[in-house]
């Protein structure tokens, strides 16, 4: 579900008011900070638990590098979502060409392939992406507010399904309420994120596995295939 929302968010015009939910907002805020030091072959898998038992897994892998159409250094980033940690048969797949300097922000993505369920992958057309290709880092509500506070703790070992990693806890408060907790780790590739908690809604995202030998897994469509055109909805 986050995958679909992410596609909608990336490709939709701001007027559409697409909401990716609390986990999506927190992730996008983190991902918009750039992927400048990610290297080809790095991959990471997370376990997402929305607190209602519907656990899913999310894999990100850097599978190639090239210049994007704006001449920027860019990564091919594959994302997969599924209900099994191995993601042998993902329920959604996304492949993005992401500019290193811009990260996973709207202006940073110049090519996108999308596959949902058992459908064959299709590319999103350039016009859909160009409409959003302007620098616009997402901001979280309250971050400019005097009531917002970010507190960073000491580095410590964090136990995860992928083993213990050295991580720095970062807590975001709003009016004395902890709204987000992140554990940032240099050991974890791609996003450097080991764990994320949203205590108010009992959502967690936790490291499931990581490595450095990722290969492209998404079967891409023939270039002659019809591309997907996305239009903003919800705006008059």
């Amino acid at each position, binding site marked *: 579900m986050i995958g679909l929302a992410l596609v909608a968010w990336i490709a939709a015009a701001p007027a559409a008011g697409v909401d990716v939910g609390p986990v999506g907002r927190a992730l996008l805020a983190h991902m918009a900070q750039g992927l400048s030091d990610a290297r080809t072959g790095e991959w990471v898998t997370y376990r997402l638990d929305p607190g209602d038992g519907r656990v899913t897994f999310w894999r990100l892998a850097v599978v190639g590098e090239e210049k994007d159409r704006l001449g920027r250094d860019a990564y091919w980033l594959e994302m997969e979502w599924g209900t099994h940690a191995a*993601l042998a*048969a993902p*329920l959604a797949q996304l492949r993005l060409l992401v500019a290193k300097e811009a990260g996973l922000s709207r202006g940073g993505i110049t090519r996108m392939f999308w596959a949902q369920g*058992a*459908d064959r992958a299709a590319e999103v057309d350039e016009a859909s992406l160009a409409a959003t290709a302007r620098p616009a880092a997402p901001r979280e509500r309250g971050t400019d507010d005097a009531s917002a506070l970010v507190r960073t703790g000491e580095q410590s070992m964090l136990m995860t399904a992928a083993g213990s990693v050295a991580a720095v806890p970062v807590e975001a408060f709003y009016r004395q309420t902890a709204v987000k907790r992140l554990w940032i780790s240099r050991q974890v590739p791609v996003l450097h994120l080991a764990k994320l908690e949203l205590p108010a809604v009992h959502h967690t995202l936790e490291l499931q596995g990581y490595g450095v030998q990722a290969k492209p897994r998404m079967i891409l469509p023939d270039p002659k295939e019809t591309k997907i055109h996305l239009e903003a909805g919800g705006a008059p």
Partner: protein
Amino acid sequence: MRQPLILALGALAAAVPAAAEQPLPTYPGTVHTRIGNDLVIGGEYYRMAYFLTPDPVARVAQYFAAEWDRLGIPTTVDGSPASQLVVSAFYTREGLQRSVVLCRRGGKTLGFSVLKDLWTRPDAGGVAEEAPLEGALFTQDFSARDGAVGRARTELVAADLGTVRARVVARLTGQGFRLVKETDGSEAGRKGLVMEFGKGGARVMQVLTAVDPATTARVQTWMGEGPR
């Protein structure tokens, strides 16, 4: 010793990558008999086989559901062990669906093992699809992927036997065919007709069976130089 080896081979077969010949799902300890080569049913590619086992339907279904779940393949189970159970696994990366259709027959479980291609559609090859007969409630076309055998159509028509016969004769004679043979095909108390039409080297067989006074089943088989 033999059982673990078969289990291991079954698991290995299920994990073969997309580039290789895609295997059908198999139940350990049974003989799987292929039904034709690659088939085209309702405009989609299929590969099929059947097997028989003394194991109950629920146990066979559980085997496939557990095996696919272990491999991380999204799996569904539909139906009831008392009538028919269908276990399906969706190989989303390769665009394939593997299913087993299970039912009880003569004290044994009869299983149909099916591989369905979700991405590739057959090329019509310039041959226009024949429209369903007037009053058709259901139409299903069946052919081989490699065109090695003729094409068949199964149809259920909301009309009595005589009316359907008249519509079939009108359509085929309009296409230049000639009725060369007609015999009584009544069977088990149901009225029926078997007709053979010819045009040059092409032959079209028609088997009409009255399902009830207002419904007729039709099986049409093209042979020779008919449409493929």
